[in-house]
């Protein structure tokens, strides 16, 4: 599914958070929105999702300009946001419709792929932070979204779980060819996952640069090419003290 942003801005009570963003996303592309905190990355993502319809400009999803929430889009938030009164299985089936049995089978498949197949009867309070976020990921993926929006989905996780889930995301992407837009402040993560990294900068945030990463996946996290790219990105964000 393709996605296009045309001159998108968002102003909160007179303060502009993000200004004049233009972006064309091809179907199946993975885009990273990278930037320091407060430059409007999440604001932009919420505008795309339809959760926040009060932006200026135009967002076109698959050729339709709309400010509504799309059925074909899924959102993974920074926190798990599980419904505490539902167990893991019911949380995952929350967004599905259809027969109960079918829903549950589907959910079990996804729980297995996030490594939680034996945790389906637990309640959110019984989960660790990493487990809860994995359930949230399963919940977002189970609807087979054509557009997947991620708002710093792995930022609260430890380094190992993070890498594991990044690989999981790539697996799902390979299978469904979802279009993915992810907000992140982790440069390594952006370089490991994305086809293109859009760097936002300033207040209000504006697009500073777009970097295309040509290397094929799976990428080597420690490769020289990525190290070189990282330095370039750091320069671009004025974070390289040399």
């Amino acid at each position, binding site marked *: 599914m393709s996605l296009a942003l045309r001159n998108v801005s968002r102003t909160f009570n007179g303060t502009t958070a993000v200004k004049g963003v233009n972006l064309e996303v091809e179907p199946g592309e993975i885009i990273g929105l990278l930037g320091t905190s407060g430059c409007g990355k999440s604001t932009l993502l919420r505008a795309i*999702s339809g959760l926040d319809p009060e932006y200026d400009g135009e967002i076109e999803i698959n050729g339709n300009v709309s400010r509504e929430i799309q059925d074909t889009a899924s*959102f993974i*938030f920074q926190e798990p946001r599980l419904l505490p009164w539902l167990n893991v299985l019911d949380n995952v089936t929350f967004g599905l419709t259809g027969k109960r049995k079918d829903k549950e089978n589907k959910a079990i498949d996804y729980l297995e792929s996030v490594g939680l197949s034996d945790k389906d009867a637990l309640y959110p*309070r019984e989960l660790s932070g990493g487990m809860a976020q994995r359930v949230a990921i399963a919940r977002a993926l189970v609807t087979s979204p054509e557009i997947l929006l991620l708002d710093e989905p792995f930022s609260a996780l430890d380094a190992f779980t993070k890498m594991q889930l990044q*690989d*999981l995301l790539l697996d799902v992407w390979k299978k469904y060819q979802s279009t993915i837009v992810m907000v992140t402040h982790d440069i390594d993560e952006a370089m490991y996952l994305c086809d293109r990294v859009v760097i936002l900068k300033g207040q209000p945030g504006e697009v500073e640069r777009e970097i295309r990463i040509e290397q094929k996946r799976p990428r080597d996290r420690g490769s020289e090419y990525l190290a070189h790219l990282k330095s370039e990105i750091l320069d671009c964000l004025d974070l390289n003290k040399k």
Partner: protein
Amino acid sequence: MTEQQNSTAAGYASPAQAKVKLDEKKDSLKKNKGSLLQTVLYGSIIPVALIVLWELLSRAGIVPTNQLPAPTTILDKIISLGQDGSLWGHIWITTYRVFAGFIIGTIAAIVLGSIVGFYKIAEQLFDPMIQAFRSIPSLAWVPLFILWMGIGETSKIVMIAVGGVFFPVYLNIVSGILGVDRKLIEVGKMYGLKTFQLVKRIILPASLPSFLVGMRSGLGLGWMFVVAAELMGASQGLGFLLVFGQNMSSPETILASIILFAIIGKLSDWILKQVEVRSLHWQDRLEK
């Protein structure tokens, strides 16, 4: 690569966790049995000691028995009331009044509370008025209700419903609905839920804890108001026994009635507490 990672992770985790689970189960079983006995035991040490002390003091003649009769005298009184059959009538009618008032008050509070919680305009219209009414001590309504509806059942039940049950339930429902986490509502919206579905699947379950708190304090106040209502004028009921005991200068009747109030009140609260435990087991709360 990922699959391998996952499966090794799962393989590593599951046997260890299964064992932990089993141990936990055993532990909790033991704990449950032990803790129930312990709760009953610990909870009854001080009351039993006090009752024994009271009995001894009465028997020794240190406490004037015409003012404060011995526990055994009170027990005798309850048994004799039970034997002549009037006890069940008193208990039944009082419980019936509280129950009826509780149901009516709760339903009214649910209807009004949900409307005020969901619609801004309803909040602006109704809430200031309801808040103003709340600041009137509810017992002040009693004479008016009796004037309007006589001293029959209707006035008593309305008094319990309006004075006791309605306000706590209403206030808790409104604050429960207004306090639902916006983040969870966004999850529902992201899945395309419309207003009705959003209410049913997210807002209601999320405000349930607050609603149950309201029900429990409403029930407590309901018991308070049944006493007030029965003191004002009744020919039957535990509250009537209080007045009757006073008129007959029979403190054991008054104390018998008080004890029965304590038992039934505690029992009804326990039932609600069980409902709460069952329906809110998912809550992440501090367990001592």
